[in-house]
């Protein structure tokens, strides 16, 4: 009873508020040429975007050309391309120790390795999970929810959970000792620390991609499979010829989002390993953060220059993928 009254009241309030722009909009409709009306709807969103995303990027461009440690842009000396030059000064790009900014190049190669491995593995695991969940399974809702649950956790929480499990006296080592094995310093060797950052980021995100793929699978019309069954096509061929091609749009979405996210990896790893051991898990955003934000001498110009290089790479990646998507879209008509 009270519930209905409350929801009615909320409905009225909602209607009253949403009616407010009615008159100005009508006026605008009468007075603006058709093409301008869209701007009214995009405007507010775009304005906030301009202030809190575009403007900071422009400031970043300015920062990238300045030096010193002062945070106020107006009080920073102009140094031109010096920051970029120092980032790119290298005898051999594959040997970070030969570079002026060795950490930057460690970060680049670590990121490349991480992205390749993480995206490939995550796609594989999400796909398998989605395929399994697409079967007639008892408790499907529960399993789907269980795989999705980590997606909801904040990166800091994710990292703390795994830090707690992986620490020297943690539960994983207890299991090892219980099985008669030697305890392992999981985050101490470069290889295993790197592996764990890959694993943890897959653990945290794969539920989301699984859902997208699962939806894609469920959207494949059942009659196609039935037709294939009539032809007694071997299952592997059905998978390759029917499932995979029809799932391609979803796979592409997963690839694009996964790739962008992987290149931006930061929070989880920052809390989990702090970039260590040595610089084995220092990825690009962490380098930027360390240089510009957490170092005692904040070289904001350097950090901004690295950010722009990163943004440039990301932009190229996306353009390539957008082109790919468009090609796919047009071939389907």
């Amino acid at each position, binding site marked *: 009873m009270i519930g209905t009254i409350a929801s009615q009241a909320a409905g009225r309030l909602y209607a009253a508020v949403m009616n407010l*722009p009615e008159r100005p909009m009508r006026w605008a*409709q009468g007075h603006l040429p058709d*093409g301008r009306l*869209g*701007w009214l*709807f995009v405007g*507010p969103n*775009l304005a*906030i*975007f301009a202030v*809190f*995303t*575009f403007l*900071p990027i422009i*400031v*970043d461009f300015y*920062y990238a050309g300045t030096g010193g440690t002062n*945070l106020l*842009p107006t009080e920073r000396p102009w140094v031109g391309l010096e920051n970029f030059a120092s980032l790119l000064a290298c005898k051999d790009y594959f040997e970070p120790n030969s570079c002026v900014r060795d950490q930057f190049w460690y970060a680049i190669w670590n990121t490349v390795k991480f992205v390749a491995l993480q995206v490939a593995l995550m796609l594989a695991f999400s796909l*398998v999970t989605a*395929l*399994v969940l*697409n*079967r*007639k*399974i008892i408790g499907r*809702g529960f399993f*789907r*929810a269980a*795989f*999705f649950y*980590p997606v909801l956790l*904040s990166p800091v929480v994710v990292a703390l*959970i*795994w830090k*707690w499990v992986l620490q020297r*006296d943690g539960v994983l080592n*207890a299991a090892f000792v*219980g099985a008669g094995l030697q305890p392992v310093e999981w985050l101490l060797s470069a290889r295993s620390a790197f592996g764990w950052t890959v694993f943890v980021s897959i*653990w945290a995100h794969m*539920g*989301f991609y699984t*859902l997208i793929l*699962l*939806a*894609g*699978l469920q*959207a494949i019309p059942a009659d196609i499979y039935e037709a294939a069954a009539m032809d007694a096509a071997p299952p*592997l061929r059905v998978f390759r010829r029917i499932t995979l091609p029809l799932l391609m749009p979803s796979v592409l979405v997963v690839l694009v989002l996964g790739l*962008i996210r992987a290149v*931006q990896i*930061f*929070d989880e790893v920052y809390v989990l390993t702090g970039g260590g051991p040595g610089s084995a898990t220092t990825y690009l955003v962490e380098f*930027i*953060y360390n240089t*510009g934000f957490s170092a005692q001498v904040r070289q904001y110009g350097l950090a901004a220059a690295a*950010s722009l290089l990163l*943004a440039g790479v990301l*932009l190229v990646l*996306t353009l390539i993928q957008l082109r790919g998507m468009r090609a796919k879209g047009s071939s389907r008509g």
Partner: protein
Amino acid sequence: MDRLARLLTATRGRGRMDWTDWASYLYLVLGTLLMLGPVVWLALSSLKSPSGLIEFPPTLLPQEQVRVAVPTYPAPLPLYRITEGDHAGQTLAEVRKIGLQATMVDPAAPETPIRVPIDARTKVMRLHAAWDNYGDLLQKFDFGRYLWNSVFITTVATLITLLLNSMAAFALSKYRFAGRDPVFLLMLATLMIPPTIILVPNYLIAAVLGLTDNPWGVIWPAVATPTGVFLLRQYMLTLPDDLLEAARMDNASEWRIYWRIVLPLSKPALAVLAIFSVMWRWNEFLWPMVVLGRSESFTLPLALNSFQGELTTQWNYLLAMTVVTLVPVTVIFALLQRHITQGIASAGVK
């Protein structure tokens, strides 16, 4: 190979359980353990006392050493079971320890001190949940205020996000106007910008606008999400234009078309965006930490994080704090999981 392929292609089995079904269930059960196990382990650990946390191998459930009150001793004494020597099998209380020897007494006969080497005894433990970890946390802070700050920011930011993003998505999907595609691409391109790299300029801007130290400083920069615009636009593209045309025939204003027709039809996508937005704002950490400098405007994660010194990490509090922050998200998810997972699936694929 063929059978493996069947595992991959089968949609909804055929009555009898064959091995592919067993394999599927095995995969799912192991996966579930892997997904939920660490979280459960964390929650159990958060109830351990500091000394319980450093036990190795760790116990599954939180424990503490049993202490008994012994006459003539002011404080309760810790109990040990003696494993070797004359008193093997007895349970004694420790009075003091000097080097490798401990002076102990039998609680039943406290007059005679007994000397025991310290490696000839084990602690007597009992189950004990250290609720103090939580009690201390909640006591240390004005918990209600921080909870309110978090709830306020999350709710208001989500409402504004839904409104602004859906307006933009409406225009981007249902209008043709000069500059539409560049605007859309520009917004999408910012998806590539890791928020970390615009932190400092953003703070300077927030300071100029007077948004620091107040919740709006967290809300405004967060509401124009490119993901939201993208998600809603893709969804709205699937709504038939005929509906809009019919409404225009009835002389409905464009605004009315937006909120009376398009919004209600976009409910599934809006629900997904709402969930994302709640999740983002609730978990947000780095930006609030920079922009909120005063304790009365802290959000929950900031407040719970505030006891970390330069030189110390106290795992008992850290674990309790982690649990406190993940409980609300978990409860909401448990209640709404079907809607959430289905919603994301349906909106994500479009």
